[in-house]
């Protein structure tokens, strides 16, 4: 950092923000946050930059009620949700959902709702204590997640990674509460089937 910036940074010292140090302190953290949620390096990089720039615009609003990192993460999180929203509302994605629904069409008997024999859950036999096994299992899990339709993955990720409130997810992604449960259920059915196919 050049000396010139210390004077500028001093302006923010009272609110305990120091934009001059953001890159050094938070860039990797924010990049990891974005990447794990959207699985796209370039997009994740862009979002980190956008987050810093948006934060600079709003720096006077920072009250110091949360830590700088928490505040920046909140800004980034909204940008990630924007991405989810854009991706899942795209017109072309309708076929993606139709295909995924098709895939589970014969999971259950249409008449009585029983599991059809070919799709019945079988034990994974995953030992939680075994780190290597769970690492391999994780890899498959990530690949299976990528196969979910974008809308399903968005809902699923917001719920399970971030433990977001259901009504927030419904509002942000414009799904009804009834549809939310359908999506959570369907996403899990496909994810589980994919794990069973690729693991056992």
């Amino acid at each position, binding site marked *: 950092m050049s000396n010139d910036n210390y004077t*500028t940074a001093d302006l923010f010292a009272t609110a305990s923000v120091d934009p001059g140090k953001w*890159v050094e302190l938070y*860039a990797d953290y924010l990049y990891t946050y974005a*990447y794990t949620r959207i699985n796209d390096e370039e997009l994740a990089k862009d979002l980190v930059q956008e987050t*810093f720039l948006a934060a600079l615009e709003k720096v006077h609003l920072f009250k110091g009620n949360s830590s700088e990192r928490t505040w920046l993460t909140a800004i980034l999180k909204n940008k990630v949700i924007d991405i989810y929203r854009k991706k899942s509302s795209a017109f072309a994605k309708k076929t993606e959902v139709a295909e995924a629904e098709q895939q589970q069409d014969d999971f*259950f008997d249409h008449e009585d*709702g*029983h599991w059809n024999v070919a799709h019945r859950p079988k034990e994974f036999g995953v030992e939680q204590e075994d780190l290597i096994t769970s690492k391999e299992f994780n890899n498959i899990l990530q690949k299976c997640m990528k196969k979910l339709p974008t809308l399903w993955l968005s809902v699923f*990720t917001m*719920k399970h990674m971030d433990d977001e409130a259901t009504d927030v997810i419904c509002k942000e992604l414009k799904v009804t509460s009834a549809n939310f449960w359908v999506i959570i259920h369907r996403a899990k059915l496909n994810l589980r089937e994919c794990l069973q196919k690729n693991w056992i």
Partner: protein
Amino acid sequence: MDEITKIAYNCRKATLLIERKQILGLSAREKLELKIHLAGCNVCKIFERQSILINRMVHGLFHSSQANELKLDEKYKKQLQERIEKELNKH
């Protein structure tokens, strides 16, 4: 078939209840329905265990990757830094 009997034999419904149970919780009646179903359905018992496992793994996926943080390349960081300093100097 009365309602309870229907539920007791419907795996599609039972798996939905299993998902709801983990996020929202179930009403007393739904709890009873699921309990009756699971008492007689080993396959859905496996489903429930796997569903819980998957949720835990997904959660862990995020936390463990956060623990071994990814790194942005230095060149990009330098550009970011310059960009921020440029913005700061405008003020």
